[in-house]
């Protein structure tokens, strides 16, 4: 295995594009190094992107935020502008792993690892995040939702590198939230995760809603049925009940070591209800 630490994104893309065997981008390494431990793992090339200028920065523009692909999740929490704009995204990213993992892990790595249970991904999808992909054929911007396509699989092609996650400046009267279920208080992978992002009208009723579900399908679900239950409401009991039912119905989980189908479907509804309340309050709803 070869380790490279290029100083420009062009070099990084070229190295990956020209690599003969299996090659990987290395961000925080908290997924990649775990995989490397397995006796079945083989890689010919690892390209560390942390020395590329700008990758470790959070840029605030007129449109919003560009979060460099090498920004650690711990650093997200230290950016007060980002925290106040997208509290749900940051809290989701901060749930990943431990203090030690937070020092290293990135949202981009979380997204590209394509685990169905990735914590920041539902929050990014609810926030309608986009990612900037730089590849052998140039730069393109695509929806974060379209990156993971199944467990461990992404839509990225050979030589593609995400250089930043883009978050729009939030609308007035909007708020987002993420909740997950784990049996312990820390150090568990989500059994269910739900993100809700709401924008309210002047009268305090929900104008737009995005509801994303994690760990209940091969990859993140953006549920329009669930979103619809909230539109026009002030999160009255009936609306929340409908949201709960819609989220349970939208979930198509499996039984595994972390939870059962019945448990996941039921708890997806419960968490959606709770996350919606938090997002609503953050949006200024009462």
């Amino acid at each position: 295995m070869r380790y490279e630490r290029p100083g420009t994104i062009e070099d990084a893309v070229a190295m990956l594009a020209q690599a003969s065997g299996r090659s990987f981008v290395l961000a925080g390494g908290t997924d990649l190094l775990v995989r490397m431990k397995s006796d079945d793992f083989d890689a010919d090339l690892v390209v560390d992107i942390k020395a590329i200028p700008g990758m470790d920065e959070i840029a605030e523009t007129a449109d919003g935020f560009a979060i460099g692909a090498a920004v650690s999740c711990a650093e997200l929490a230290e950016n007060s502008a980002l925290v106040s704009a997208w509290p749900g995204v940051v809290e989701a990213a901060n749930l990943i792993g431990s203090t030690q993992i937070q020092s290293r892990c990135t949202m981009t790595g979380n997204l590209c690892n394509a685990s169905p249970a990735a914590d920041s991904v539902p929050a990014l999808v609810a926030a309608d995040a986009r990612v900037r992909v730089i590849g052998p054929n140039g730069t393109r911007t695509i929806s974060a939702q379209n990156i993971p396509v199944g467990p461990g699989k992404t839509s990225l092609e050979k030589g593609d590198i995400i250089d930043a996650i883009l978050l729009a400046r939030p609308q007035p009267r909007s708020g987002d939230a993420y909740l997950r279920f784990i049996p312990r208080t820390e150090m568990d992978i989500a059994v269910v995760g739900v993100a809700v992002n709401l924008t309210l009208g002047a009268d305090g009723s929900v104008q737009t809603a995005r509801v994303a579900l994690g760990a209940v399908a091969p990859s993140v679900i953006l549920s329009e049925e669930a979103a619809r239950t909230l539109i026009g409401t002030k999160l009255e009991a009936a609306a929340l009940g409908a949201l709960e039912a819609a989220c349970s119905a939208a979930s198509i989980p499996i039984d595994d070591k972390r939870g059962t189908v019945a448990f996941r479907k039921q708890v997806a509804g419960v968490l959606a209800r709770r996350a919606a309340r938090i997002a609503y309050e953050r949006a200024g709803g009462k």
Partner: protein
Amino acid sequence: MSFDATYKEKKLKSVGTRPLRPDGVDKVTGRARYGADFNMPGQLVARVLRSPHAHARIMRIDVSRAVALKGVKAVITAADLPDLTNGNAALYAILDNCMARTKAFYDGHAVAAVAAIDAKVAREALKLIEVEYDVLPHVVDVDAAMAPDAPLLDENLFTQGIDPAPTTPSNVGNRSEFGHGDVESGFAKADVIVERSYKTEQTHQGYIEPHACVASCNVDGTAEMWVCTQGHFVYRQTCADLLGLEVSKLRVTSSEIGGGFGGKTHVWAEPLALALSRKAGRPVKLVMSREEVFRASGPTSQTSIDVKIGATKDGKITAALATLRYSSGPYADSWAETGAMTSFACYDLENVKTVGFEVIVNRPKVAAYRAPSAPMAAFAVESAIDELAHKIGMDSVELRIKNAASEGSRSSYGPIYGPIGIGPTLEAARTHPHMSAPLGKNQGRGMACGFWFNFGGQTCTDLNISADGTVTLAVGTVDVGGSRASLSLIAAEELGISYDDVKAVIADTSTLGYNDMTDGSRGTFSSSMATISAARNAIVTMRERAALMWDIPVEDVAWEEGHAKAVGASYDNRAPLSVKDIAAEAGNTGGPIAGHSELVADGAGVSFGTHICDVEVDPETGATRVIRYTVIQDAGKAVHPAYVEGQYQGGAAQGIGWALNEEYVYGADGRLQNPGFLDYRIPVCSDLPMIDTQILEIPNPNHPYGVRGVGETSIVPPLAAVANAVSDAVGVRMVHVPVSPPRILAALNAKAKG
């Protein structure tokens, strides 16, 4: 002079204080050397190839390609470990577990091993070993393994302990029975009967340090091993037996040990390291990965237990019956028997019967885990007692007090108790502020009792007095939780010197006589006994030396408060001689001064504990948090109270983990799904509250200071205490441990449906 171990009340100066531990500085500076922290010149790296199948006949193993790989220095299979066990079934089980001989019995069972110049080559070599398996049907569940149509692990296993002996083989290794009286007539007298079935899942000791050793065999037949173990003398014996080495030529040094809890009382890969070293002619280092630790080293039993308890309306238990099925991995052992012995040990019962079944399954060989077998039995019995109290409408502490065993009670497993602590711990619970603290919404409280025998055993200790009067104490029981500090306190107490003047070390197998391993909570109990005896022997010598120095008869020399004193008016108040004074003259009075002791420590003194637990359950998700926890336990005498508290807290935390989230999860293919700390969920720091402790001291009559074992009892009550608290919070009786969120939510849904 024979050693008088009986308890004598006296004022203690050192014992019972909380000095700093002798190994503290090494451990906070990173200098302490654990199993993997030792290297030898020219050492090779070993790796073990493990079966991916739960049950498979090994048809063929071809190691030739691995042997041919550059950098590979030895490859071994079962063929390199000929069977020298001579019909000893227990030893054969160890041998077969170390390296599968004809069948792989579980996912993770070793089938071959390599030693190579580095980890990379060793990993490559594993991939080059070809194993052809004939995959057989498997069974991993204890109840499924007892079904008549279950796949058989061993066609020659006929259940022992049944009359007449069965004529068809099964997966039940043996049946054991304990009790007295007549349970049927007892139930006939009962006004209220509780009858239920319970299940507990398999858990792992979860020590943070994986098994590690460095083995070195020499051409002259001598060998050395550095290893993390709870019993280096036992490892030496087992390894020598399995490999055909002479016991005295194998020198085993125990490293600092990063947790064991029973799991490091059994050999796993150590014989393989020795065999590889013998074959390669070089030292070999073998460190298990975390995944290997989970897949192939000692978990505890999975159990299925039926309990029936009857009582009169006023709360007197008239009869108690339990049927206990314990899985033991692929080889029958005596885990169910121990469970059957401990089940009702807390109570004074007229009619009691327990029956244990030892069940073999396609899971790793079960190893001891802190009060082995007792927590599961206690879960079932203490849950039933809790339910009984509810049914009668009696306070659950009162019900237990009413039926608690006391001095003179005949225990359910046979012996008559001496002075014991179950009653006092229950009385302490009754008046503990925790018991009456108000509970909030969705909160519940549970309590439970637990028992453990405690062991003594063979112990050998040397106490050497240096020329400056300081003392080195060499013990052979591995320090798993601060026993060096405790033993230093004991030596200081006996000799009447300062704790700071004593340094305790763990001697290797070549420098001290045989010691049983540190298990059964025996470390401090038995080595303290040997330390007292060694100190008293040293005092005899020091009195003789003082007599020489003074030139008076030794009968006129007494030992008081660390000094030799001349007794009698004729010696006109000679200044007493301190240990230092006597030691300084040792060269002129007969040479070095030392005290030795070899003994079998008897009468470890049973111990009891009562735990109280508060939980809060989220009724919509089943998420459970322990919000308050109290441990009350009899220590006999707390030699170093801080370490006794630590044992109470550590055991409680392990029990809480077992109760709430820890479990081995197997797939339909019989493979372990969660061999890592991310999915095998031991409690993390944010999961737990502070754990309050109350130490009771009911002296053990068979120990000079009244010490009992303290290390194990604390894991016995938590399963039931937590489950009772959850049952109280959610209003449904939880009968399957761990009471994980999916199980709680399913129970709540079932209740809602009615």
